[in-house]
């Protein structure tokens, strides 16, 4: 509205847009810009710190104006800081964990949404209740159970734990989505002689794709950014994913914040890439809760 009025300078003087409206527009843009700058400031600070040399950060402090330019921080975080191996570990954990969770959750959701499974509501409530439980109280049981199964300090254990803790939420969301698919579609397939698995795989799953994409993108960031379970289940430094590896860049007394900042930037790249690629679905994911 403001833009269409802009070309005619004379029109503006004659008060096509009252002063109050113009002030409101100005206020909105000024406020929004200030907020987004405030939002961006920590990221900008990390980027600036990641490009300063160690002596600069130690000598002038974290918040000073840069006195140096040292892109080598990225190399030292990547090689000496072990971020390369950590990112590989993160990929080994995140990708199968996300794929398996979605597969299992969609199967469970299919059964719960489309069939009269006994104790259906109880199951869903337990899954939801499990999500309300703070994971911290399960730290010791999970650590001891992985030991019991001989999986302690293995990436397989971490994948299993991440799947287990994600599953309840995904089932809950997916079954809500699947319930919106009209029953007629399934009945038509049934008349054509399709069995339950065919209906799941060829009818329901393709229709659930928007929800799967949104959940996939969300769960990738959750698993990738998780710190609690890796340090609970894993012991060896070489198996640690990227979050504990970043923590490991901190020293007992002294930390080289420039290298840590560079490491954080590297660690953020995969999640940012996933976000940019699946941006549409992220926003779709926000609406998933609204599905009846």
């Amino acid at each position: 509205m403001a833009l269409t009025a802009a070309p005619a300078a004379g029109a503006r003087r004659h008060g096509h847009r009252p002063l109050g409206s113009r002030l409101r527009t100005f206020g909105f843009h000024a406020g929004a810009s200030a907020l987004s700058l405030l939002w961006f400031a920590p990221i900008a600070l990390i980027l600036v710190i990641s490009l300063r040399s160690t002596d600069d950060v130690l000598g002038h402090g974290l918040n000073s104006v840069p006195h140096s330019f040292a892109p080598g921080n990225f190399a030292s975080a990547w090689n000496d800081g072990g971020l390369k191996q950590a990112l590989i570990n993160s990929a080994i954990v995140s990708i199968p964990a996300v794929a398996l969770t979605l597969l299992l959750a969609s199967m469970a959701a299919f059964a719960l949404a489309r069939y009269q499974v006994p104790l259906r509501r109880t199951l869903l409530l337990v899954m939801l209740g499990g999500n309300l439980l703070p994971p911290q109280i399960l730290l010791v049981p999970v650590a001891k159970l992985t030991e019991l199964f001989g999986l302690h300090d293995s990436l397989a254990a971490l994948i299993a734990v991440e799947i287990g803790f994600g599953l309840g939420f995904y089932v809950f969301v997916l079954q809500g989505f699947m319930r919106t698919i009209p029953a007629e579609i399934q009945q038509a397939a049934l008349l054509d002689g399709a069995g339950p698995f065919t209906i799941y795989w060829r009818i329901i799953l393709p229709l659930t794709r928007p929800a799967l994409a949104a959940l996939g993108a969300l769960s990738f960031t959750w698993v990738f950014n998780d710190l609690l379970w890796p340090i609970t289940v894993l012991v060896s430094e070489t198996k640690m994913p990227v979050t504990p590896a970043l923590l490991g860049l901190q020293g007992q007394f002294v930390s080289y914040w420039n290298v840590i900042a560079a490491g954080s930037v590297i660690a953020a790249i995969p999640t940012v890439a996933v976000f940019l690629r699946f941006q549409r679905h992220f926003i779709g994911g926000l609406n998933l809760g609204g599905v009846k």
Partner: protein
Amino acid sequence: MSSYSLSRRNLLQGVGAVGAAAALGGCATATKSSAGTQTGGAVTLQSDLSSPLAEKAMQALVAAYGKQSKHSLMLNTIAATTYQPLLPTYLTSANPPDIYTWYAGNDADHYSKRGLLLDVSSVWNTMGNYPPAFKALSTDASGKQIFVPTSYYWWGVFYRKSKFAEWGLSEPKTWSDFLTLCQTIKSKGVTPIGLGAGTGNAWVASAWFDYLNIRINGAQYHQALLQGQHAFTDPQVGKVFDTWKQALPYFDPNGTAVTWQAASNQLIQGQTGMLLTGAFFADAAPKGSLDDLDFFKFPVIDASVPDAEEAPTDGLFASAKTGNSAAVLDFMTWMAKPDAQNMWTQTSSGTVIPANPQAATPTSPLAKKGQTMLAGASALTQFFNRDSSDALQNTANTALTNFLQNPGKLSSILSTWQTQAEQVWKTA
């Protein structure tokens, strides 16, 4: 939507199931595993030395050990912040890592009481040249050795030589000299004393408590106090805080908000005059500025009290459940020798002092001065947490932070501290 209406019965069913899951989880804590019986394979060394310099030094050490030994060793460096809370978990797990970097003294003894540590008396048979004080520190309550010291460092009041020259100051020997010096620095518009007891670094303030107590009441009283043989409400402890109050106007008013690393930075930039800190401070100094740094011994308050110094000792202990004790003992024996300790002190930042008296003396002037100071001390203490326990350290953090912020409430702070400390001593 109606199918989601919560009936009471369904909710109870759900709650019951969650409860059952939690109960099952509880059972799992009692599981015992048959692991830990393997006899060969690589031995793991769990290390909290995660600062880049120290990690590189450890990697070099492990590589050097591997070259001359038939045993293989794998280094696991874990962030210092997660290492401390996870250490009990490591030690009690069914198949724990074999060797750990940790502290001598009560802290190690605490784990040994629970039967978690390997008897390393056989290593000590090869360590005849170590001073008896180290052996005492490495011996647990039952009389066996459980710890092998590798290095130690000192605490001192660090300052910048160029700034002291600019202000026309020299190192103070006594408490009254020190207060006069603080006044001079303050008159130059500079905060005399930095602290750095901010978020996560509250323990830094214990250094002041330790030193004031050692100088006023002596090392023996200090250690007895930390063991629960005296009370924090004693008049002797009150005297410590009365003396502290004399220096309080010279402290950085943001001392309990600024992190230790930021406080060290303030000293390097000349925003504060002095900082009571450990020798690890050198790691926080950029190259070149180290030459301008010096320290002095914490000033004498009562000349009749013999000078004791803080000398935290670092080293190794091992899990009692190790599957390959031959390799563990072999590595610890190697680490006790001068060659290994020389490598360590040279490759790390150069302010640690090797524990083996036959190892090369450190070359940096700072470390030489530190070593001389410790050699002249009548007694050595470790540090608040190492002389007591991590649990008691937490009570000190609360009390000292509170004192620094509200010095007027001293008597109530001390009685709260005593109550909390009694709970720690009771459960220990």
